[in-house]
């Protein structure tokens, strides 16, 4: 769907209106995953493997079942086989079958009349394990004698002799690399490592399930995609999709980590067996051990540059591990690695390796931060070696309209150059620095996504409008959707109310991911509003007894146009609504689409740090985010996405990491030892929103949710390198690592 009009003057879009769910959220009234209860409800609890890798020889649940208050115990035997292998992986992640594949893998679950009874019952379940050798690091998992995490999962396109743990082999690029490197004045090759991190949403996964003996089910859960949850759970329980109704609760953060199932099928199976509703809530320890995290990575980058800063060739080899199951995230890494550059010769290869870790879940721009960290660090090192300004070098090589991207498509209107220019012109770029301080810069990129979307608008008798959409609202999207409906209909924002429907009330919607909601649901809302306007104009044409084409919609009113202009008094939406029952009945607008044209998003981050040479601690002095939003529908929430993503990236760069012991167990499954940034760690995160309209959306909107987590990793690394005069090639840049680098 094309951009309407570049010069369009917006009335509602671009303002900072109050969000509809705000008061509920500041008064404690909003209901999240764990906040719902049902009469007769039981409490569930999950038994998890203490071993990183073990064959499950037998599970004896009889003593647990005999405990007073226990109403059901389930194991993998209580689920169907999934229809597809990808779905089977999702189920096996929720409940281990033959083998426990990582520390924290679920092996059985109970439902009891109290939380304490459920916990006591877990201790009575006897699991007979045969402990197997395990592997948790990429390098180790590629060794010829490494334990095979799962048999028969090797990539079909893998060359002969590839280790069975390698599940994906991908390659992108174009041009003659050899000739490109030959033209360079300087070629460097570097290796980088990034640790696995967790999305770190503050709300643990939680759900309330109720299955009745006639095969019908209700599920309340915190999820980014309740339609997808329904599809998976119905498959695992052998239910018809239509018989399972899933309602998305308010969601306490997801960032990609709530795009799949973790405990929901287990709660449904417990409820079915017990014949009562079951609430299941993960502890924080379980969240760390058995949900999320991201991939960890080990990458090699080779880049050639001329003396004046032109990149002549660029090459990447990415190795990701995404836990104990095949994981395609490396493909997104390889596609995005060089997206910010206009390159004649480029190639990005990638492999994914299985390890005994939890199954990776998406995390904001999945796959991109680690790849772009490696590339942007290498570019920065070349700039240092050749004595070039890192911003000028980015500008010189920047992808722009017409650039054939490294991953294939040719870019349309994109905002990278404008974003770089904005950074160059910003006072931050010229601010003075003192000893032990350094400034870093990095570009970031995300593809963005559109996808399956379905929206209904209902005109109420008083002329106000209800919007029904199907995507959980994580950061204010109900406000943005109402704004776009109000804009299109020409009515005030507070005359629109948007709700997120359950799966039985509206057609299918893809998951809230890929920065898709404001773009795709917005687009469908605008089209649904146009559908409603056409219907209202037709009703008015009938009343006036003129042609439908002779009625136009302006400022919330139908007006006669063309030869009839001025013949009738305009009719407002309220007047049309009031007599709808006499002109043909209720009026609604509807649109369904598999939306295309999401429009990629670029960002540039600037950061100044000061490193304490005594302690190795990095303090952030200044931080500025520049990002192309296409059109910022609600600037507060666009800024919020830019700031939130930046701070998650800061955590990734400086503190956060999954630490596994020799025994294959996660050493830091809690917020005390897995330390995410807190308010006192940070300065103000400044934001500059650029608006380069997306040609694929009527208002020019681009998704903004993900790009912002990409640049901080390299921006921080480049800043630290310049502050201490030595470069780390590994994240996080924790104080001990910085002290080590300072020692040389």
């Amino acid at each position: 769907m094309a951009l309407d009009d570049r010069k369009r003057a917006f009335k509602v879009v671009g303002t900072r209106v109050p969000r509809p769910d705000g008061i509920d959220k500041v008064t404690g009234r909003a209901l999240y995953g764990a906040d719902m209860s049902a009469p007769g409800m039981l409490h569930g609890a999950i038994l998890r493997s203490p071993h990183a890798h073990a064959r499950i020889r037998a599970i004896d649940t009889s003593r647990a079942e005999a405990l007073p208050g226990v109403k059901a115990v389930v194991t993998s035997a209580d689920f169907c086989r999934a229809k597809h292998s990808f779905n089977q992986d999702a189920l096996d992640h929720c409940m281990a079958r033959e083998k426990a594949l990582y520390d924290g893998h679920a092996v059985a679950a109970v439902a009891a009349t109290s939380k304490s009874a459920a916990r006591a019952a877990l201790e009575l379940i006897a699991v007979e394990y045969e402990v197997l050798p395990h592997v948790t690091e990429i390098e180790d998992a590629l060794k010829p004698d490494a334990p095979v995490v799962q048999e028969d999962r090797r990539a079909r396109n893998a060359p002969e002799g590839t280790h069975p743990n390698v599940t994906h082999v991908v390659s992108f690029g174009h041009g003659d690399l050899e000739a490109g490197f030959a033209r360079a004045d300087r070629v460097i090759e570097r290796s980088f490592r990034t640790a696995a991190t967790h999305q770190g949403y503050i709300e643990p996964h939680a759900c309330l399930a109720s299955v009745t003996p006639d095969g019908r089910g209700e599920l309340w859960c915190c999820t980014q995609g309740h339609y997808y949850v329904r599809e998976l759970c119905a498959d695992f329980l052998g239910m018809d999709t239509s018989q399972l109704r899933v309602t998305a609760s308010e969601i306490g953060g997801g960032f990609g980590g709530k795009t799949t199932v973790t405990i929901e099928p287990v709660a449904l199976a417990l409820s079915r067996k017990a014949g009562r509703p079951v609430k299941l809530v993960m502890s924080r320890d379980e969240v760390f051990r058995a949900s999320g995290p991201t991939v960890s990575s080990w990458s090699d980058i080779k880049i050639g540059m001329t003396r004046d800063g032109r990149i002549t060739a660029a090459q990447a080899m990415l190795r990701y591990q995404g836990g104990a199951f095949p994981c395609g995230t490396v493909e997104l890494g390889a596609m995005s690695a060089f997206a910010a550059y206009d390159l004649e010769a480029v190639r990005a290869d990638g492999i994914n390796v299985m390890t005994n870790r939890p199954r990776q879940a998406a995390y904001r721009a999945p796959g991109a931060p680690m790849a772009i960290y490696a590339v942007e660090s290498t570019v920065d090192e070349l700039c240092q070696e050749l004595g070039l300004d890192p911003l000028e070098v980015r500008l010189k090589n920047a992808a722009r309209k017409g650039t054939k991207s490294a991953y294939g498509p040719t870019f349309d209107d994109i905002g990278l150059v404008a974003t770089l220019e904005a950074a160059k012109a910003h006072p931050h770029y010229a601010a003075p620095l003192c000893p032990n301080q350094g400034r870093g810069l990095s570009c970031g990129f995300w593809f963005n996504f559109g996808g399956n979307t379905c929206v209904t608008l209902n005109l109420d008798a008083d002329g106000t409008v209800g919007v029904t959409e199907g995507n959980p609202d994580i950061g204010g999207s109900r406000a943005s959707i109402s704004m776009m409906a109000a804009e299109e209909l020409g009515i005030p924002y507070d005359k629109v109310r948007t709700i997120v429907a359950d799966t039985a009330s509206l057609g299918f919607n893809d998951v809230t991911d890929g920065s898709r909601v404001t773009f795709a649901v917005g687009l469908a809302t605008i089209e649904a509003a146009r559908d409603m306007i056409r219907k209202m104009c037709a009703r008015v044409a009938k009343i006036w007894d003129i042609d439908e084409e002779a009625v136009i919609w302006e400022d919330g009113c139908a007006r006669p146009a063309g030869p009839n202009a001025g013949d009738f008094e305009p009719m407002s939406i309220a007047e049309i609504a009031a007599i709808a029952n006499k002109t043909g009945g209720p009026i609604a607008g509807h649109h369904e689409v598999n939306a295309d044209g999401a429009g990629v998003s670029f960002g540039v981050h600037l950061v100044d740090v000061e490193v304490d040479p005594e302690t190795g601690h990095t303090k952030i002095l200044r931080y500025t985010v520049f990002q192309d939003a296409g059109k910022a529908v609600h600037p507060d929430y666009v800024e919020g996405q830019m700031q939130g993503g930046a701070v998650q990236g800061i955590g990734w760069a400086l503190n956060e990491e999954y630490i596994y012991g020799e025994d294959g167990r996660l050493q830091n499954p809690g917020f005390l030892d897995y330390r995410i940034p807190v308010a006192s760690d940070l300065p103000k995160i400044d934001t500059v929103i650029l608006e380069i309209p997306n040609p694929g959306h009527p208002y020019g909107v681009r998704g903004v949710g993900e790009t912002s987590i990409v640049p901080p990793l390299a921006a921080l690394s480049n800043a630290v390198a310049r502050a201490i005069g030595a470069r780390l090639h590994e994240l996080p840049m924790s104080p001990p690592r910085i002290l080590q680098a300072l020692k040389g």
Partner: protein
Amino acid sequence: MSRIHVRTTINGDAVEYLCEAGQSLLDVLRDDLGLTGTKEGCGTGDCGACSVLLDGRLVCSCLVLAAEADQRSVETVEGLADGDRLHPLQQKFLDHAALQCGICTPGFLVAARALLEKNPTPSETDVRYWLAGNLCRCTGYDKIVAAVMDAAAQMRKG
């Protein structure tokens, strides 16, 4: 298992409940009293989502035993507004878009209230350090800090 009889005051109302010896105040608030505005993010005192005031002092309700609330007063996010009049902190959180998902918001509001009752003129650094026990993964804290500073300014004006 015999249960403990507790008489307490919650948000100004007299409340009685029976609890297990090992039950946390957070669990009783949420599971037994239906006060689900107080959230659980960790259960180990590390995230601040469960912040409440116990006799006016800021505590993590996940680390307080339900039995300890006997003869004391508890204030939660549900007690912040005065009927339909929002507390200035609540209003400023809305005005500054200081929440995205909102799961951390009750904890931040209760913690910020405790700060402003102690120190009506906090600096931005005071606010950032006082709130360092409250985790927010969505906002990067900027708008939260701005909201608290603005609420403090408004409350000083009265």
